[in-house]
């Protein structure tokens, strides 16, 4: 088992416009990317659980040219609304950092 932080060269979240946010998990090389992709541990269900939404609301992409796994979800609140906690949505990936990856 390894943690995602030990395998990825970048884990980040960011607004994709004021109404969506997107998470990128980028790997330094193809074998590591394929290993995590193949493990299926980063799933729509996992991301949905982080944001308390239905898995059907999660768009999950495997982006081979950049060795990246990407997930996009509706924002928890519209950017800048009164209950906002993170205007750029830059700190919404914390649960992924120590995620255990089998294999």
């Amino acid at each position: 088992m390894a943690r995602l932080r030990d395998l990825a060269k970048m884990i980040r979240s960011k607004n994709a416009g004021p109404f969506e946010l997107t998470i990128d998990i980028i790997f330094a090389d193809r074998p590591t990317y394929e290993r995590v992709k193949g493990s299926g541990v980063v799933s729509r269900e996992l991301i949905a659980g982080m944001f308390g939404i239905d898995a059907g609301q999660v768009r999950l992409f495997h982006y081979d040219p950049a060795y990246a796994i990407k997930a996009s979800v509706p924002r928890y609140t519209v950017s800048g609304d009164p209950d906002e906690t993170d205007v750029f949505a830059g700190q919404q990936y914390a649960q992924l950092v120590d995620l255990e990856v089998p294999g």
Partner: protein
Amino acid sequence: MKEMRYISPTGMIGSGFQEASLKRVLACDPAFIGCDAGSTDDGPYQLGAGKPMFARQACKRDLRLLILAALQQRIPLLVGSCCGAGGRLNLEWTWDIVQEIAREESVSFKAAVIDAEPPREYLVRKFREGRVRPLDPAPALDESLLAGADHVVCMMGVEPFQEAVDNGAQVVLAGRSSDTSIFAALPVKAGFPPGLAWHAAKILECGAAAVVNRFTPDGMLCTMRHDEFIVEPANPEMRCTPVSVAAHTLYENADPFLLYEPSGALDTRNAVYEAVDERRVRVRGSAFQARPYTVKLEGARLAGYQSLVIGAVRDPVILGQLEDWLASMRRRIVERIDSIFGRDMASRYHMNLRVYGRDGVMGAREPERGRIGHEVCLLLDFLADDQETAHTMAASGGHIALHHPVPEWHGLISGVAFPYAPHVIDRGPVYRFMLNHVLEPASPMEPFRIDYRRP
């Protein structure tokens, strides 16, 4: 035209770039300079209040170098989404800076100022005609909400830029634009394949963001051909690799394969990225699917006025019963506000009691909210219809928080450490984004108005 070179000196006007990098790429005889100035990242305030994201002096520095470069090379400078939000106030703010630069440098030129904030009657008419459609997710919209918005901008495509340059404008200051339209306009006009032109534009609009090692904001050079384009960092110490360029379509973009633009969608599924050398990357195979023309809308409306108090708790006795202490504190604050303003106020203000060190970043989604350290930061904010009301609430709330008791200590405690005097901070007006919709214009130019001026 067999080949067209063009440059993006920085990802955003006001964020800066190296003057030496600009000089270096100008020597490559570019056909135009493009620069994005916009972003919704910082929230709805720029659009709502008509205020800039970056400071005036910072924007002026960048604009001065770019205007002088464009004049010297006799090439157009295209600036999109002026002053962040690209509304009319944002546009005039930028025009004011440009006039000042022209005076100081004793230069004159034909400028095009492209308004992206159409009359509200136009938008309401389009809404009535069913020509305003929600994207997913979109807030509910009706005619009165649309009519009552503080500012609504339309995101322009390539056509207004093309028309302005056709009419001889050397400096184009555009209101809200799709970031990519700034860079796709002239290559598409010159007949280069739209898939390549839009893809290159997506890479260029963020300046040097697609490099391996962006140690400072800087620029990018594109060489467009009919079967490929090549990107190269303007800064000789920066490098692009196939992976760094491919990775850029991930950035702040929900779908890495399909990017929606006013006139269609860029499809990068068959794009191929190859190293030309250790700094340059060649891209081929990007496609563009034409779609019915739509213009994205962005709108902001006043949410109210905010005041807040920041303080922190260090006492282990209080921290040991933090949840109960905060719950009873919250009740006391609500009671006090009721006593000052009457019960009618209950539905007309919004209070947040945020706890940093517990769940300040993630709120209800925080899985470890039960674990706190040896201190927490409290942020108590109030949103009301006017500043005085919000200020009154924050002042009362802060005072109640300061002295809110715990059973273990007998007598009056001061349980919150305020870093600032005065401890109430008025934030002024705050806004909300209210549109995630597209408009179907009768023509790509319909929502936009070009005003030709000389500074």
